[in-house]
C-alpha cells in the first residue's frame, strides 16, 4: 500500500474509534469497549503519524557541532564577579547570617512534631488487663469448650473489639503435648492457648494455622511459630516468639486474661527489651 493511503487509513480508524467511543459512553459505558476504542483512537493517530515520519519525510542526516561547554576565561570572570569584597571582608557577619538562617530553619521545622504523638507506653502495652474476658468478633465471651481443636479464632478484650494491638488468636491443643516455657504452666486452661495475632517480624496478622505441625504461619513473609513451645519461631525472618496471653477460666466458665501479653506485641523496635514499659506501668 502507498504510504499516503496507509496514513489516511490509520487516521480514519482513529476518527471512527473516537466516534464509537462517544457512542459507547453515551449508551452507558463498558470498560472493555472503552479501553479498546480509546486504544484504537490513540493508536490509529499514533501509527499514522509514525508512518508519515518514517515513510514520507525524507530527511538527510544532520550534524551539529557540540561546541565548548565551558571555558577557562568565563570561569575566572565569574569567580571575579562573585568575589565581592564587602562580603568576604565581613566574615563574622557572613557566619552569623548562616547561623541565623539555620536557627530559623530549625524553628520552622519544629511544627512537624504535630504530625504524631510520642510513642510513650503505647508500644509496650495493649488493652489486655487481668480479669478482661476474651470475646469474639461479635463481642460474645468464649468458653474453653467452644474453642475448636485444629482451628483458629480471633478474640479481643471485652468492650475493645477491633483494638488492633490487642488482637489475639485462640486455639486448642492437647494439654499433654504442651512444652510452654517455665512459669506459664497455668496459661493454657484445658489446652486453650492465646497468642498475639501480630507477627513479631513485620506486623502482619498471623492468620494461617498448620494443625498437624502445631504452627502458626504469617502469610506475608512466611514466619512460622510453634504454638506448643510458647510461640517460638521455627522458620522465616521472625526471630522473637509470638507474645502469649495468660488466660484462665473464671467462675462462670468464660475465658479471661490474667494480665497483658508476655512481651510487647508486633514488630521490633530498638528499646523493646528495655524495662521502660514495666517501670512506668508500675
Amino acid at each position: 500500500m502507498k504510504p499516503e493511503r496507509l496514513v489516511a487509513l490509520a487516521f480514519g480508524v482513529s476518527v471512527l474509534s473516537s466516534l464509537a467511543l462517544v457512542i459507547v459512553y453515551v449508551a452507558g459505558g463498558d470498560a472493555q469497549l472503552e479501553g479498546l476504542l480509546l486504544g484504537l483512537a490513540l493508536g490509529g493517530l499514533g501509527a499514522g503519524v509514525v508512518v508519515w515520519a518514517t515513510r514520507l519525510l525524507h530527511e538527510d542526516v544532520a550534524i551539529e557541532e557540540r561546541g565548548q561547554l565551558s571555558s577557562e576565561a568565563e570561569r575566572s570572570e565569574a569567580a571575579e564577579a562573585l568575589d565581592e569584597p564587602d562580603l568576604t571582608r565581613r566574615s563574622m557577619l557572613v557566619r552569623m547570617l548562616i547561623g541565623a538562617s539555620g536557627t530559623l530553619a530549625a524553628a520552622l521545622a519544629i511544627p512537624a512534631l504535630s504530625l504524631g504523638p510520642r510513642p510513650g507506653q503505647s508500644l509496650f502495652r495493649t488493652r489486655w488487663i487481668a480479669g478482661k474476658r476474651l470475646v469474639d468478633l461479635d463481642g460474645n465471651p468464649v468458653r474453653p469448650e467452644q474453642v475448636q481443636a485444629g482451628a483458629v479464632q480471633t478474640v479481643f478484650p471485652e468492650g475493645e473489639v477491633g483494638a488492633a494491638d490487642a488482637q489475639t488468636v485462640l486455639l486448642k491443643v492437647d494439654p499433654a503435648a504442651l512444652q510452654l516455657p517455665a512459669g506459664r504452666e497455668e496459661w493454657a486452661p484445658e489446652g486453650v492457648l492465646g497468642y498475639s495475632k501480630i507477627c513479631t517480624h513485620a506486623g502482619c496478622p498471623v492468620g494461617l494455622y498448620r494443625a498437624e505441625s502445631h504452627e502458626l504461619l504469617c502469610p506475608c513473609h512466611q514466619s512460622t511459630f510453634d504454638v506448643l513451645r510458647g510461640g517460638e519461631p521455627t522458620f522465616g525472618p521472625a526471630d522473637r516468639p509470638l507474645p502469649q496471653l495468660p488466660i484462665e477460666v473464671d467462675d462462670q466458665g468464660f475465658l479471661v486474661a490474667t494480665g497483658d501479653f508476655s512481651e510487647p506485641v508486633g514488630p521490633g523496635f530498638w528499646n523493646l527489651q528495655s524495662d521502660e514499659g514495666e517501670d512506668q506501668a508500675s
Partner: protein
Amino acid sequence: MKVLRWFDERLGVAAMARKGLRKVFPDHWSFLLGEIALFCFVILVATGTFLTLFYRPDSVPVTYQGPYAPLQGQEVSAAYESVMRISFEVRAGLVMRQIHHWAALVFVAAVVVHAMRIFFTGAFRKPRELNWIIGVVLLILALGMGFTGYSLPDDLLSGTGLRIAYSVLISVPFVGPYLAFLAFGGEFPTEGIISRLFVLHVMLLPGIIIAMIGAHLAILARQKHAQFPGGKASESNVVGKPFWPGQAFKSVGLLLLTGAVLSFMGGLIQINPVWDYGPFDATVVSAPAQPDWYIGWLEGALRLFPPFDVTFFGILIPSPFIPGVVVPGIAFGLMTLWPFIEARLTGDHDHHHLLNRPRDVPFRTGIGTAAFLFFLILTIAGGNDVMAIMFNVQVEAVTNVLRIAIFLVPALGGLLAHRISIQLQTAAPLRLGESTRVRRNAQGGFE
C-alpha cells in the same frame, strides 16, 4: 508566520525556535526508552486528575450500599467506598483507574530499563553525572509515587503494604518509633494515614517529579545527546535527525502509541480488583499476597533475610532493619555514586560523548549484570509463596534455595557477562567509521 511574528516581537523567540527545531537527535531505538517513561507520566497525570475528582481521601467508616452485591451492607472506609464507586458507578471510571494503574507499572519499568541503557552504555560518564543522579532521584520518586498510589484504595492488600512499611520504619535504631509515629500519626493502624498519602501522591511527589523532569531535560538539552560511535559520529559532534519535523512526529507518535497500549491494557486486562480483596481489616490478611512488581525486591529481601534480631548493649536491631533499610540504602547509594566510583577505579576523568557498547567495558557490564540479577532474585523471592504453590513444594524449600541463589547467581552471572563481553570483543572488534562484513569461507574460518 503571523503567530510567530506576534510572539517574536514580544519575546524574541525566533532565534530560540530556529535552534530548537534544528536540534539533532541521534537515531537509535534505545533513546526512546526515556521518552516512554515521560509519556507514561503524562498519561498518569491525565488519568490521575480524573480519578482525583472522585476519590475521597478519608478513612471514616461508611456502610457500602453500591451495586456490588457481595459487599452491600458492610462497613468500609470512605476511601474504599469511593474507589468502588469509581469502579462500578462512575462512567468510564473503571477504565481510567485501570489505565492509571497499568501506566504506573509501565512507568517504573520504563524508568528502570532507561537507567539500564544509560548504565550499560556508559552514558553517565563525565559530563553527565548530574543527570544520572537526577535520574536515580526520579527512580526513587517513581517508587514513592507507586507505593503511595497503591495504598490509597484502602483495600486489604494495600493495608498490608502499609503495615509492612510501618514495621520497617519502626525498626530504625533509636529514632524508629518516633519516625513511625510521626509518619503514621500514631500506632498502626491510624485514621490519618490515607489523607497524608493522598497529599504526597497528588501534590508533593508529582510536584517534585515535574521539577526533576524539567531539570533532567534542561541538562540534556544543554549537554546535547550522547551517541553511539560509527559513521560520522565523533566526540565533538552529534549526528542524527533534526527535531523538526521527523523527530517531533516520531515523539508525538510514540506518545500516542504508548497511550494506545496502556488503553488496551486498561480496558482488557483487569488489575487490582479491590472488590475481590475487600476493605482493610487489621485482623485479616490474604495469601498469597504480592505488592506491585517494583516493590517486589524489597518484599523479597524481607522474606529471604534470616531470623536475626541482634541486641547490642540492650539495643535491639530488629530483622526488618537490614533488608528493609540498610540494603536499599546501600543499593541506591552505590547507584547514585557509580559515575564517581567508576571514574576513581578507571582513573578516567575525560569528557565522553561517545557511548560504549556493553561488551567494550567488561567489568562494568559484569557489575551491572550482577546487580540486575541480585534485584531479579529478590523480586522472585517476593513471590516465594506463589512459586511454592506453582511447583507444589514447601515454601521453606523455595526460600532456602533462594537464600543461596541470592549470592551465587549474581556472582556467576556477573563473571559470565564479563567473560562473554571479552569473547565478543575479540570476535568482532569495533571498527569506527567503516562497515564491516564478516564472511565464512569454505574452510570454516572467517575473513
